[in-house]
């Protein structure tokens, strides 16, 4: 309860700070300075004259050839994602957007986003429906064509749930001063459930909550997940964001009967960075997350009570030229570094370090005939250690694929 008060106070302070800043700013349109929080609307849409609905989407497909410890299961082709966007300007200050995603054909069909936004003021917009929780940057800014890599970052998929959305409501807004832009988001949504420490991954795994399709209908714990993000952007320096989400993930009572000894919390803090060296065009994109979880002492240490992870992408355009009929084709060399520690701490019995971590590097070559389409060749080399820190399992994967908006 004490923690919740602190969080409410932090959100209130964040609002006061941003509102104070707004009194010094000009009355600019809040969507003109694009930030990660704008990613859901910052997409190409097909528009039709006098038709208030816009359509869009993207497709992502690739081939993959993996070798794990010398053994390969051969070449596979993957139709990873087909995503459809529909947005509508319902009236002058009311808009709607939804994102429907088909993963691996029809293996997973999900409404990732479906919200109505009411714009009261650049600093105060209301959003409700199915919202993408603003934790880190990738969760909101995840469209395949924006990235030079076929795989999504491990921290954003295996530590944080990727494209984690929930039913809920909240506010967001932005303010400007000179080259600076400040943005905030704050939501109350449905939250996690006990599958995060009771799953077939055999580790604390926040992403397992996505298996619970009823999370759009019922909040498992009965307590709202509090989620907020504060980001600051300088037109030349880039964007830095800090985000938090936390809440109870278990049920202490059901029908008035006690089924657990206490309420158990999960808290997540994330930092994200997006910057570029203007002279060379080198872009740096990164995200780091730290998770605290109240795992019962009587449960197995297989499920960690702390996790940490990060990724860093370095993207260097090496050639910009006209190719065929593409006027601004770009060839880029990139490198991603992934690190995830699923279980921080020492074994109680031996006081030795608990393993269960992963490290990967992915060099990539990407070709963008247009900004909306990317062809990618990736080579990923991964070292993964089990919980006991036994010799790492090594996996090398080749990817050739594309992703394109349409």
């Amino acid at each position, binding site marked *: 309860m004490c923690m919740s008060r602190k969080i409410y106070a932090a959100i209130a302070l964040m609002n006061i700070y941003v509102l104070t800043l707004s009194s010094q700013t000009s009355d600019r349109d809040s969507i003109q300075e694009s930030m990660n929080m704008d990613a859901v609307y910052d997409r190409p849409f097909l528009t039709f004259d006098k038709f208030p609905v816009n359509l869009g989407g993207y497709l992502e497909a690739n081939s993959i050839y*993996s070798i794990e410890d010398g*053994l390969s299961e051969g070449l596979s082709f993957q139709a990873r994602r087909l995503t459809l966007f529909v947005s509508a300007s319902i009236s002058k200050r009311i808009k709607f957007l939804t994102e429907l995603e088909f993963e691996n054909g029809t293996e997973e069909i999900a409404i990732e986003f479906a919200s109505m936004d009411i714009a009261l003021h650049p600093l105060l917009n209301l959003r409700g429906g199915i919202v993408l929780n603003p934790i880190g940057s990738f969760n909101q800014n995840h469209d395949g064509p924006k990235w030079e890599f076929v795989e999504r970052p491990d921290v954003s998929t295996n530590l944080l749930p990727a494209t984690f959305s929930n039913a809920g409501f909240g506010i967001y807004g932005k303010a400007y001063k000179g080259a600076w832009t400040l943005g905030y988001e704050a939501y109350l949504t449905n939250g996690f459930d006990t599958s995060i420490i009771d799953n077939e991954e055999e580790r604390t795994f926040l992403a397992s909550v996505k298996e619970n399709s009823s999370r759009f209908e019922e909040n498992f714990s009965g307590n709202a997940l509090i989620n907020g993000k504060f980001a600051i952007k300088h037109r030349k320096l880039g964007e830095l964001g800090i985000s938090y989400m936390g809440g109870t993930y278990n049920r202490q009572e059901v029908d008035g009967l006690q089924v657990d000894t206490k309420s158990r919390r999960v808290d997540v803090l994330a930092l994200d960075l997006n910057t570029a060296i203007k002279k060379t065009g080198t872009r740096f994109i990164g995200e780091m997350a730290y998770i605290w979880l109240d795992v019962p002492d009587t449960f197995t240490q297989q499920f960690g009570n702390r996790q940490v992870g990060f990724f860093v992408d370095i993207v260097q355009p090496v050639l910009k030229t006209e190719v065929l009929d593409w006027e601004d084709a770009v060839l880029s060399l990139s490198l991603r570094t992934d690190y995830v520690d699923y279980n921080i701490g020492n074994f109680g019995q031996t006081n030795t370090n608990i393993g269960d971590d992963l490290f990967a590097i992915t060099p990539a070559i990407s070709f963008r005939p247009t900004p909306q389409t990317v062809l990618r060749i990736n080579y990923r080399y991964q070292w993964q250690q089990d919980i006991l820190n036994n010799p790492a399992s090594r996996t090398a994967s080749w990817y050739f694929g594309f992703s394109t908006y349409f």
Partner: protein
Amino acid sequence: MPKIIYFFISLSLIALLGCENLGPEEPMEFELLDGPLDGLSVSEQQLFLAGDIAFNDDVFTVEKGLGPLFVGTSCESCHSGDGKGHPFNQLVRFGNNNLNLPSMLSLGDGRNQIQNKAIPGFEPETVPDGFPFSILVAPAVTGLGLLDAVPDADILALADPSDANQDGISGRPHYNIPPEFTKIRNNSVPQGNNYIFRFGKKAGSYDLLHQSVSAYNQDIGITSLYDPIDPFSGLEEDPEVSTQTLNDVVFYLKTLKAPVPRNQADPDIITGKELFQSIQCAACHTPTLTTGFSPIESLSFKEFHPYTDLLLHDMGPELDDGFTEGNVGTSEWRTPPLWGIGLSGNSQGGQMFLLHDGRASSIEEAIELHGGEADNSKAQYLSLTPKEKSQLIKFINSL
């Protein structure tokens, strides 16, 4: 066509054609404990694969029947890489210290293992005050099918319960009554209703089905057709693991290969092997056994080198936890196979946790904790020169 397109296409072709050569190499056969026996037929390999998935990939959740009290959430959590376990998933068994009393006192469920973990909302068990107990670290599971196929007569031939040859070593088999669901071996040599038990630290299991059914039930809290009693409630429940899965796991355990010895031509290892014989380690850690007939051809009439006699020996006061199991005394332990011991670190996180409870962090320490019937051998080991000791340890590590 622009150069950039040629470049991209060329790179794609290089990636496509070269991908096989840019991956991690397969570890050498002798570096791994897991893997099937040589010579399995195609259908046997399919059965092995099904068991491999059940053993190494099947994780139990609350929805799948985990617990509510348990020790581990999967087979693999205690037998990483099919090797020895780690103390973080240790088992605790308790009982009395007198073989003339009922041998397995319990918490009311008819068994003597503590389920020391619990799903949220439940309290794990603890050892009742005043009862002796043993901590056990999971054993390696490689080569078990070969041990399973050794005829009773061969085990009995190694036994010397009254120490007739007066060498101070008096191994005896553990005779006990197998559960009804087990299939008695064709070549069994019973004593009334009692048959030779051969698996487990105190030879508490008759065969691999018995061992697997017990492990599902006592270690994961998973009921089966063969053992439908839930360890928490003591009540009969619907099976939480299918009989097919159990059979798959048993087949997998039967057909896991034996560890492959390493560097056997090394002169130090050759000398170490001679020392192993001369100081009588081999009197219990029998180097060579032979299987009888098995319907699995790869197990049939095979000579193999486990370094165990599958018999119980009095190991002296250092290893006496005051805990009996079945008809096995407090200081008696079944000779553990030494094969694969040098690879233990690869399944125990780079360290060694040896002996039944993992208390020894090295082979030297484990030898020094031997006693009872091993007193003579230990004394001879202690009198070896440092070089000889090193050669002996090198040999044991090479198994």
